């Protein structure tokens, strides 16, 4: 497989963009880099909701349990959590290595809420709450770091391009 440059598509290269386009792109990159923070905030809200629900409704009614059936064992859920965090971290690191700007924090919010739900249904959320929380914080922080570092690099390139355009303008070379 050929080595990929850090800025790996024409869209990511600032060359040929006008001053206004570069400014707009910097704004867009700032918004993109904030997406990681929104993901972390969403996870904290999800965690707060999980704690509140488990405090208010410590156990589901018997009829609901009868309808849904037996819960998976706590051991199985824990194994699934360990496999999930391992594979998620590998994928995030691989994406960071490839220099892509994809943010997958939203799907992780879904997976993590599923773990909260499964532990709650297995009556084991109290014992495993911190494990899910630590897993979520690690994954979403790494996602945030990945997207933030990509955006910072792209913003730096855009600013360099802007200063080049500014120099050209001062010397009357257009831009």
């Amino acid at each position, binding site marked *: 497989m050929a080595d990929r440059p850090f800025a790996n598509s024409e869209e990511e290269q600032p060359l040929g963009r006008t001053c206004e386009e570069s400014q707009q792109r910097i704004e867009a990159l700032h918004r993109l880099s904030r997406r990681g923070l929104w993901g972390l905030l969403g996870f904290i809200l999800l965690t707060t909701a999980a704690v509140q629900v488990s405090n208010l409704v410590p156990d589901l009614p018997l009829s609901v349990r009868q309808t849904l059936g037996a819960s998976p064992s706590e051991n199985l859920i824990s194994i699934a959590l360990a496999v999930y*965090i391992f594979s998620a971290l590998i994928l995030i690191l691989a994406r960071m290595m490839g220099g892509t700007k994809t943010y997958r924090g939203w799907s992780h919010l879904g997976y993590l809420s599923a773990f909260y739900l499964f532990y709650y249904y297995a009556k084991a959320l109290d014992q*495993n709450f911190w494990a899910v929380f630590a*897993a979520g914080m*690690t994954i979403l922080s790494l996602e945030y770091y*990945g997207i933030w570092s990509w955006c910072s690099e792209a913003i730096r390139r855009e600013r360099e391009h802007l200063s080049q355009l500014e120099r050209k303008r001062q010397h009357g070379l257009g831009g």
Partner: protein
Amino acid sequence: MLRNLAARACVPVALAVTGFVIVCCMLLYTTLKRDLIDDAVARETSLADIIVKSARYTMLKDDRESLRQTIQTLGEQQGIEHARIFNKKGVVMYSADSGEVNTQVDKVTAGCVECHQGDKPLTTLGPMEQARSFTNARGTKVLAITTPIYNEPACSQGACHFHSPEASILGTLDIGLVQTPLEKSLAALQLKMTLFCAMVLILTVGGVFALLRRNVILPVRQLLSFADASSRGIDAHPPQGAEEVEALGRIIAEQGQRYRETAQELQRIKVKIVDLGKAAEGSDKP
């Protein structure tokens, strides 16, 4: 701050390894804790069964004084928080704490509700359902086991006294053991796992950082200094190390050499132009 090579290489690795190790340690601790508690419940259920079986003959003979003494002695043992037998109606008949004899146990309290939550009380429970955990008035954690005393043919057909053959349960033994040794074991386990976790993190993150510093960061810094020196025309030795670093050093050295040669050539041309200019000025003069 996070733009340099060391930060870019170490932050994601440190974050990923730290998070993964912490989550795995938490899951492992929870699993071990549950296993230890399950073992403690199994041991205590077995102990309660032994007590009921050893008191069987005393109960069969309706020797109430001996049974009272047995429960009293049992309750005085270290690690036993309470020991009591209550009848089918929930009245405490024998207890290590004489103050609670003849008191009524509420059927909705923990330890009773497991069987009495339905219309018809259950007669059998698994070991985990027989166990309950609570903190007593002295703040000590207690693991209590309730074991039913089943009716037997000898109980209902005995000459000395009898119970109705329809009654499946005659009473319940309730024994509580303090969980201090278990709590101490769990605290020791937690400490050991925290230390292990810290050591793994220091080794991994420290190892990655040390290797990166030795093989990447320092050679890159040496290359930077060499390139800087080369661009200013200062003679310097190219850095030694990995073959990529040496190759890059050779390229920088060659470019530096070419740059110096070009600069010298330019200088020569400038001098030549100046000389030619002076010569032209001299020839123009009359």
